[in-house]
């Protein structure tokens, strides 16, 4: 349902304004549209462009140690991690270890509903996801490790299957495309997947050029002649393998068609492997979702929000720009999904971590010297990672006394305290699940 149109004073009234264009912001806008809530979504850039394209739920528990929150002066104790094949079973352990974790406020059904609705939306946007039934599927990373995730996009699906079925996989890299090494992947995987081999090929027309980028190669492959030459280059190497894994070079938009066509020509199944930034797989998610949202009736602004005010009706008011025009959004409900430091949802002033937009209290280590472990890879995860905004059970931020900050203010995603998505492999899950809980609450409140 589309919000009312802008009136003469350039005021755009809506029921819900979502600030943020990352996974949580997009999910919140989708869930609101599904519930016929007139919604404005605002956000300029987000880290979703760095995403692997998979949707994580939960895979790894960083053990919290015997600890009093942040009180240890020296973070030298060694921690341990525990991997879980069954994410929902793992979440039970997680919330026992971290009772304030956002997942502790959610039922399995709520989380599953969120994923269902989000996958349905992504399918409508052109990206089909395959969800684990009970166990986490795994994908091959460009490092040559296996990553456990929850929903695998179509373009990685065959890789996941090949891992489980221990098929003969050929990983192909391209001369001049740095940061993606077929031999690196094969060497690292050979102990657990002996059927993996690596091969370097040259890209037609770019045999001698220095720096290649996945995005450019994707555009090259839209040229049927180059596509054919590329397929022919692959042909001699695929004879004795079952599946072929490529870096994500099949374009930002028509990747499914390109893959199917390639599979036909070479006669083998093909999958893609996410690459480091800039990540084509992340751009696919971003492009697909942001172009789909307006079709559901969500009004989007690619704009930066600097300040939120309240008007005399008690509604949230803020300015956004569209071209040269400034529009004032007037929203009954506000959901902030501004992310952490990369999204500037969290900033530091005078050594104190602050929430940028509303000045919400931020749960955090006592001082800067306790933000990090000396070991970057310390299994416990850095204390700063669990800093964030504390909320009530339906993800309304709390004020300094622990009371709801404002009855119509919600949050979702990585801004929330007590989660460590990078270590838990819970990024998409925390975003999607907190968003659906918040939006469902808004829908109920009317």
């Amino acid at each position, binding site marked *: 349902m589309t919000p009312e149109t802008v009136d003469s004073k350039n005021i755009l009234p809506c029921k819900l304004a979502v600030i943020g264009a990352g996974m949580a912001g997009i999910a919140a806008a989708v869930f609101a549209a599904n519930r016929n809530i007139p919604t404005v979504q605002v956000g300029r850039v987000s880290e979703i462009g760095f995403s692997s394209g998979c949707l994580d739920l939960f895979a790894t528990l960083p053990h919290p140690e015997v600890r009093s929150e942040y009180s240890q002066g020296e973070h030298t104790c060694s921690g341990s991690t525990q991997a879980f094949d069954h994410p929902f079973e793992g979440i039970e352990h997680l919330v026992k270890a971290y009772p304030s974790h956002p997942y502790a406020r959610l039922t399995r059904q709520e989380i599953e509903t969120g994923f269902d609705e989000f996958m349905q939306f992504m399918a409508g946007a052109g990206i089909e996801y395959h969800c684990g039934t009970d166990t986490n599927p795994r994908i091959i990373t460009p490092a040559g*490790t296996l990553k456990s995730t929850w929903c695998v996009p179509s373009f990685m699906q065959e890789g996941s299957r090949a891992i489980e079925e221990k098929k003969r996989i050929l990983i192909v890299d391209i001369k*001049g495309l740095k940061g993606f090494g077929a031999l690196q992947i094969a060497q690292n995987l*050979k102990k657990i997947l002996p059927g993996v081999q690596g091969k370097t090929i040259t890209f037609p027309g770019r045999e001698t050029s*220095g720096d290649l980028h996945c995005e450019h190669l994707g555009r090259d492959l839209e040229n049927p002649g180059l596509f054919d030459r590329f397929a022919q280059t692959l042909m001699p190497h695929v004879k004795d393998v079952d599946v072929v894994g490529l870096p994500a070079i099949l374009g930002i938009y028509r990747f499914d068609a390109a893959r199917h066509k390639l599979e036909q020509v070479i006669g083998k199944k093909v999958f893609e492997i996410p690459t480091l930034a800039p990540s084509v797989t992340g751009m696919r998610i971003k492009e697909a979702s942001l172009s789909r949202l307006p079709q559901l009736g969500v009004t989007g602004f690619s704009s930066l929000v600097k300040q939120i005010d309240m008007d005399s009706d008690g509604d949230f008011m803020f300015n956004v720009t569209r071209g040269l025009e400034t529009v004032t959004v007037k929203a009954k409900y506000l959901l902030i999904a501004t992310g*952490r*430091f990369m999204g500037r949802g969290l900033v530091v002033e005078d050594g104190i971590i602050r929430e940028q937009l509303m000045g919400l209290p931020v749960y955090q280590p006592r001082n*800067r010297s306790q933000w990090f472990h000396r070991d970057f890879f310390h299994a416990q995860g850095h204390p700063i990672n669990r800093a964030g905004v504390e909320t009530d059970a339906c993800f309304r931020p709390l004020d300094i006394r622990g009371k709801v900050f404002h009855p119509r203010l919600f949050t979702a995603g990585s801004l929330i305290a007590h989660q460590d998505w990078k270590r838990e492999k819970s990024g998409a899950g925390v975003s999607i699940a907190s968003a659906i809980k918040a939006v469902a609450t808004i829908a109920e409140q009317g």
Partner: protein
Amino acid sequence: MNTHVLIIGAGTTGTGIARDLSLRGIQCVLVDKGDINAGASGANHGLLHSGARYVFKDGEAAVECRDESRLLKHLAPQCIEDTGGLFVAVEMDDDNYIADFPGMCDKYHIPCKMISTREARELEPCLAPDLKAAFAVEDAVVDPFMLSLDNAADAQLHGTTIMRNTAVTGFRKENGQITSATVLNTRTGETQEIEALQYVNATGAWADTVSAMAGVNIPMIYSKGSLLVTQDRINQQVINRLRRASDADILVPGGTVSIIGTTSVEIDSLDEIRPTPEEVDSIIKEGAVMVPELEKTRYIRAYAGVRPLVSTQNGQGRSITRNYTLKDHLKDGLENFISITGGKLTTYRLMAEKASDIIARRLKNYEPCLTAERELPASKKGEWTEPAKSARLWMNKKDPKGTLICECEMVSEQMVNHIVDSLKSEGARPTLREVGNRSRIGKGPCQGTFCSFRLASYLYGTEELVDTEGLEQVREFVNERWKGFMPLVRDKELMRVELQESFLCGLFGLEKEIHDT
């Protein structure tokens, strides 16, 4: 293995002694448990003192600095950027101290010229607006790596054998003599005996650790000093705060960066020498009084070294003399063992000369010391470093042609190939750490997030790496960068750390056992 002299410790003093003795025709073996300048010689300001800094506290040291800095400017110009220096005082600084300063310099014949504060700010626009006094002195900047590498190379040319990654683990003694030293190759685990006529302990902060193996105690105080490297060069000359020596009162330019420091923190153990976030905050706060933009500027690395101070009386930290300690150990009942520690980078040559004089005399060699007359030849090895830039050997060359492994610092595949070849010719394996030590990979703004991984991919591609060792090396590489970056993470740096962790942990899962999926 047999030699005339075994020198332990390949810092500026140890390499200086090796050159000095070998120029007198004495055969030496120089060992270090790590690499050249791995200790305080590689973790300092890179400041060549005119002597002005010491006129109040230690006249003797001031005079030594005056003479030695002049000599080095003349004999080793390739290692020195003759920037000149300023001493400046701000509003809050002690007027009596300022008033006495030119007279004290004069007393020791150290050139010092009062200049107007306006002139000082014209020379160095970064200086604080509330300047109340300024003096020009003859300070300069020295690259300690190039200095030690050049000394080492010239020593090698004159017959010295240099063994890196070679730790002394014990001494054999007989009748008041050391008969041999047991050394361990820390890479291969092999041990061997080195028999020498004389043994020199030039291990800096580790002087007591080594002498203790020979049954001799040297009472040491370990004073850790931390320094910060800025992303851009802020000043042209060395800038000293004109006050009693305190934290963060020297800003030294070098190459494309500036270095602000130091602190003075007494530590009990040499196991973990790293800067802390508290030190970083205090350096920035103090430094900004003199140069305000230190508050806002970007920093690329923090590092720390330990001043090897020998406790003579009851002094602590900065009040202990910065002059060197040379012990002949005769009183300790050892006839062929000396220890030399403490001192300053600026006076390294003099220290080496004094130590070498004792050793030469004991060996009945009466050749004169040549290092005060003969130029220090510029070796090819020194080309890998950049003036006073940081605690590693950096290849300064940028080569934007070809596929770039490191985009921040423009290090190409070709350059990596060159380094890999040179490592292999030295018999070393081209690991990420070794390639990193010989190039600028990982030293730019991404701090190894992308380039360490790209380098690993590339080395797997050329079959230099196998199994999971490349990922182990990425972890090690990232942690080495983290050591110098973590204390600097204050605000915007958090974005970079978040991005780095989302790749290395979120996507790759490198915090886990590599195949624990």
